[in-house]
């Protein structure tokens, strides 16, 4: 047990030691130390508390700051947006102001224009009223005028009708007279010559043209140099064709005073046809009255050639021992009358070229043959200074004409019958032209004008004038 006692003692001892220590260490020093440290501690704790409080405040401040910064960001964004929109608005306002000014100007402009227009309109209205009034007046006038017009037209129509009636009456009377005249004339003629009338009434009555005895020389034309051997009037017109020694054929218009001169130079060939074939000079040419196609020519090579102008060459040649001086187509164009140097008159058929008939017309060469208008009688002139009329069908002499002092000038002197088959004209060597009346069988007149021997005479188909050509180349027209 001593161990336990020892142990207990030891424990007690330990307790005592602890107490002692307590007293020495903390018991002794604690109060002073605590007193000394109180302010520090309290300060420290104060500071701690302050620090904690400040920390909390700081945290709160941070939170608030973050919130505020968020807000700020939002606000800044908003403000930017607002600024932008404000700018836009300002710009819009400026533009609107501009527009407003413009429109104001326009408006004032329009106002002035409007006023002008109104004034103009008023003016126009006034004018319009006046014009209306005038129009009304005019309308009334017009009406009146129309009425008058109508009335006048009616009267004029009435007058015209009356005139027309009178005219009709006059015409009727005239026709009546003509008829009576015609009838009497025809009766007169019928009494005078039976043959001629019958023939004339058969055919060629339409070609009947009164021909007067020419007496006065109306024209004197220097047609050709060296003599004009042949002159001929164009068929039924006043145009005179003359051929001269100067190898030119000239055409003269005698009806009018103008000289339309158509010159053909025979040798140059400007004419439409140049017909070659004769070996000696051609002394007579004639164109068919039926068709201008056929031409017949006689030359001193003792041939008579018949030409077809369309074909352009000689279709027939008649050879006779005696030269032909003069030619003439018959009216039907199938027969040729030819006068020869042996003084015979011969008739040929151009198609066969056969001699149909012959008759001794003159003792000396025949110089001219001309057919009458009606184609029944042919006039022959010879060097024996005799002019004979022969009936074509029977070849009997119908008449003979001669005159003292009338001497046929040359072998080719042409004489002619007047268109009404009443007169014969022939030129003489002393330059005079004798005209015989067939019915009277006597010389009617003698035309003296030419100074040279008259070579050719021709009567216009119209009845007048008569043309004559002499050796000097002077052509005279007689009416």
């Amino acid at each position: 047990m001593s161990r336990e006692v020892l142990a207990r003692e030891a424990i007690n001892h330990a307790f005592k030691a602890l107490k002692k220590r307590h007293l020495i260490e903390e018991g002794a020093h604690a109060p002073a130390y605590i007193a000394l440290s109180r302010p520090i501690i309290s300060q420290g704790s104060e500071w701690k508390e302050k620090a904690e409080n400040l920390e909390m405040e700081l945290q709160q401040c941070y939170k608030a700051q973050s919130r505020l910064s968020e807000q700020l960001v939002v606000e800044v964004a908003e403000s930017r947006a607002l600024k932008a929109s404000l700018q836009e608005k300002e710009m819009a306002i400026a533009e609107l102001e501009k527009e407003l000014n413009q429109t104001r100007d326009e408006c004032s402009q329009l106002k002035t224009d409007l006023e002008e227009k109104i004034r103009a309109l008023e003016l126009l209205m006034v004018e319009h009223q006046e014009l209306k009034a005038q129009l009304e007046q005019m309308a009334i006038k017009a009406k009146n005028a129309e009425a008058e017009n109508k009335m006048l037209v009616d009267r004029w129509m009435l007058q015209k009708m009356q005139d027309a009636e009178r005219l009709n009456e006059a015409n009727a009377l005239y026709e009546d007279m003509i008829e009576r005249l015609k009838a009497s004339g025809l009766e007169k003629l019928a009494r005078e010559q039976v043959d001629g009338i019958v023939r004339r009434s058969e055919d060629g009555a339409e070609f009947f043209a009164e021909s007067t005895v020419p007496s006065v020389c109306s024209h004197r034309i220097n047609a050709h140099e060296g003599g004009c051997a042949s002159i001929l009037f164009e068929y039924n017109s006043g145009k005179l064709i003359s051929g001269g020694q100067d190898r030119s054929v000239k055409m003269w218009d005698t009806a009018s005073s103008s000289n339309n001169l158509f010159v053909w130079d025979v040798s140059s060939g400007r004419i439409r046809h140049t017909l070659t074939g004769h070996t000696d000079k051609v002394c007579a040419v004639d164109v068919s009255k039926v068709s201008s196609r056929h031409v017949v020519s006689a030359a001193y090579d003792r041939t008579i050639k018949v030409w077809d102008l369309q074909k352009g060459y000689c279709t027939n040649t008649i050879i006779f021992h005696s030269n032909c001086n003069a030619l003439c187509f018959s009216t039907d164009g199938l027969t040729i009358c030819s006068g020869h140097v042996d003084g015979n008159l011969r008739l040929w058929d151009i198609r066969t070229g056969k001699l149909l008939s012959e008759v001794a017309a003159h003792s000396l060469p025949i110089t001219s043959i001309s057919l009458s208008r009606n184609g029944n009688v042919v006039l022959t002139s010879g060097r024996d200074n005799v002019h004979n009329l022969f009936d074509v069908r029977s070849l009997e002499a119908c008449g003979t004409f001669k005159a003292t002092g009338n001497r046929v000038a040359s072998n080719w002197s042409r004489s002619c019958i007047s268109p009404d088959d009443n007169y014969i004209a022939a030129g003489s060597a002393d330059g005079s032209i004798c005209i015989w009346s067939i019915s009277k069988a006597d010389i009617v007149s003698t035309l003296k004008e030419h100074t040279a021997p008259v070579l050719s005479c021709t009567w216009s188909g119209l009845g007048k004038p008569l043309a004559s050509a002499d050796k000097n180349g002077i052509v005279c027209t007689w009416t």
Partner: protein
Amino acid sequence: MEAPKFVWEGAIPLQIHLHESQVTTLPPPPPALILAPRIGYLPLLAPLIKPYFSSTLPPGVDTIWFDYNGLPLKWYIPTGVLFDLLCPEPERPWNITVHFRGYPGSVLIPCEGEDSVKWSFINSLKEAAYIMNGNCKNVMNMSQSDQLELWHSVMNGNLEAYQRVSSKLKLATVDDEYASLCLQKSQQSVIETDLPAQAKTGRVPVRLYVLSVSKDFDDLDEIPRVDSWEKISYINRPVEIRKEDKCFTLHDALKILLPELFLDESLMNVKLGGVDLEDAVRNSNEDVTSDKVVEDQGQNACKRPEACRISSSAEIKLIRIQGIEPKLEIPFSWVANNLLNPDYFLHVCVCVKVAQ
């Protein structure tokens, strides 16, 4: 009053001087007078000290460290232990110097303030739990709030709160039949029946700090100053108390802890550190007879329990636990139950004279 209460309320008066290299004002600031809890740690005093010197400190980052007579003080050793160890003749107030710059990284491990101290404490607690229970599950499974509460109770010296939390840990305590000596007789039986069935053997975690002195001395203040930690050997060895061992005294524990100091010449070759517990026990058994002799001797000589001339080569001059020098005959179980630090370790300071 109960012994634990004395232990928890124990505080050392400190007179803390600011090192002259840190003084930037004239006149230099007066030393701070701080009462430091014995069971606390020096870095925990930083908030109390700083207000004294904050105005004079040079600008920069503060890393607090202390030194006593030039020796940097290891911050993971409880303040009371440091005082007991380094001041054989207690110096009250204890003059130590505080530094805020120039942390001696070669001597001290880094301390980053209260957290470092807390983790160190928890670590020690785990170690103790492992020694006592064989595993430290109970410490590791402690909830965050419990941990914090425990630590705060330690920081603030709140015994009730500490006891509340630590009882949850169910760390086996050593069966102490002598606990009844402190209590009223009426509670005795209650305590006996309430004590949980103990294991046959209880292991007590012990941290032993041995200050070796070469010269012999008669008075404590003749002990030369400690100027290097090499003079102090730190032995971390649990003491096993066997149930059948009645009256396991402190002396017995010391023999286990420092067998080389209690050896016969024949057992002088026993290894230091890493000694097998059973060996230690055998040794203690073998020495029982001699113990008795010693005890008898000691009984007479226990008037001065410090001087125990066991062997001729070494001599334990001083044993201090929690600032007191208990007799060697004191039951070790009582010591283990009452003089524990909050980390369930028993810190024992011993001064040994070692012959040259």
